[in-house]
């Protein structure tokens, strides 16, 4: 009961923070502290290069600084969805430039540590560049869905909010994405893209 009350209070405070962040730098600074790591992590998972992820994270928060006064949302949840939507758009914009795909692919190989030794289920262990190559072949929006679902562990409902999509459609889309990835992993070779 106490825990539930504490959560309620915390959520209310976060909502107030969003409202205040429209006019107060201190509140915006607190939101930044709450979300910097999450957005940076999302960008790394989306772009697999920490330097690029820093650039995109910078673009995300600078956009927030410029746009928060016009942000129509009122709650912390609205803010979170807005923030991830900006991050997804920024990352997609980056990836859309085909000339950078090869670089991303090359970087991906170097940014992944080996999987933990003695992992339980080793039935499927693609090398990361191959998996990332396959992911990069997806539409940018589909790449975002994969990142949000599998790297950020968002629920379908949350992803639907971020991407302004229907939950049922998302489920179907993800099913198709996985089929597509499965097919691509059987045919994609390093350097193909």
């Amino acid at each position: 009961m106490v825990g539930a009350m504490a959560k309620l209070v915390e959520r209310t405070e976060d909502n107030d923070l969003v409202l205040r962040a429209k006019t107060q730098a201190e509140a915006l600074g607190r939101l930044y502290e709450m979300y910097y790591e999450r957005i940076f992590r999302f960008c790394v998972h989306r772009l697999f290069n920490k330097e690029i992820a820093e650039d995109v994270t910078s673009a995300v928060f600078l956009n927030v600084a410029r746009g928060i006064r016009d942000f129509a949302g009122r709650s912390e949840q609205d803010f979170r969805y807005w923030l991830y939507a900006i991050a997804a758009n920024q990352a997609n914009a980056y990836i859309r430039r085909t000339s950078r795909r090869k670089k991303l692919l090359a970087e991906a190989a170097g940014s992944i540590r080996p999987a933990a030794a003695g992992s339980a289920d080793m039935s499927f262990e693609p090398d990361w560049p191959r998996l990332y190559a396959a992911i990069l072949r997806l539409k940018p929006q589909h790449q975002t869905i994969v990142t949000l679902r599998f790297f950020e562990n968002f629920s379908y409902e949350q992803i639907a909010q971020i991407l302004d999509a229907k939950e049922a459609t998302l489920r179907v889309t993800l099913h198709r994405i996985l089929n597509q990835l499965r097919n691509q992993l059987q045919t994609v070779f390093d350097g193909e893209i």
Partner: protein
Amino acid sequence: MFKDEADFEKVVGRLNVDTEPNQAHRENLRRQMLSVFNQAEQEPSTRIIVFRTLRRLIMKSPITKIATAAAIIIAVSIGIHYLGGSIDGASVAWSQVVEQISSHTKYKCRQRVVREQGPQIPTMQVYHLNLQQRRQEVEDGTIHIIDMRGADAITVELYPADKKATVTKLIGFGPRKDPHITEMVKQFEQESTEKLGTKKVNGKILQGFRHKPTENSDFTVWVDPVTKLPVEIEIKHLNRGQTLFLDEFEFDFKLDPSAFSTDVPDGYEVKTVVQDYRPVEPKQISPEDLRTGLSHTAYTVEKLAWMEKLITMQITDPLMGMGKAYVIGIQSDDGNSIIIVQGDYYEEERMVWIPKEKLVMETPSGAKLYTHPNGSEYARLFLEGFAKANPEFFSMENLSEERFTRMIVMPDRTILSLSANKQMSDEKLQQIVESLKEIKAN
């Protein structure tokens, strides 16, 4: 090979990706972000006020009002600065278009809005003399002139058929930049501006670019590859079911400067409206001051037995940080501080969200009370504003976690806000709302 979603999740889970942030980047970005936020402090709120003003003062007819609303949506959609660059292989690079637009602040165009539902919007010719002066010629014959160069911005509505004019003076508004559509378009990010290929219009080949800053906004710009200037701009607002078309562009048009004069031609019956944006001196005011200060019905509170102190004041609007708010402060015999806020911004058109909130009470006289989604924060802001203006009435040291806000919609659709520092019984809430009386002249 992975079999299903759960299987794929395991695969991803085994990837060991280094996501440890760089503290130096984190701190630098924080500083940079807050600096951008502070620098942008004036501009966005200004932009909103400009549009509010245009909407309120220029577009009084329901039809033209919607036209302005379309522009508001554009402004809100493009509240982001972007960078330039070049598009590989395109005959015209977006950066070249941006460069050309930047050197042409004087232009005219035709503006059309097509809505999927509801009343259609008249077409108008819009002349931008510069970033601070604009003339709009609406197809119904109305002319609007906007001049935001001086300390007091001026807008003029001319109705030539009736020989009537409305002049609105925005005192203390300060020099402002007109929220210009081409100014917004040129801020599109090179990277996310998609090349559309070409199309032929009236024998002329145009190069297309597309930019989709949000899920609900979709911009298409067609430029002349020779001049590298826009020929057509199409802005879709998907969630609102309307599309704005700008065409018939003419850059560096010829028009007599007197067309942008805010002097009303001879023979017009002139109505003058003044909106005061100067800093407000907090002071106690009379109900009559409150009535004359508002452009809609004003209310006062009839003192009830449990009210120990009642005071009416004008204060700087705590939400806007400028302009005026009228506040009736009440101290109750159980130590509660209650404030009822009235202001011109509490207009029905802008408060359409209220009926979507929870209805908590309907009084016998037909007033309705709704919750406010950020009631606690609004109560804090108003109590703080009132505490600054009158420290004897309320001290922020006594701010309570019980504070709340209710939006009151009166039977005549006037909207007021009630904030209290502590919880109130329904009985007292109803009594206070029923004690609201319209202030009539004399």
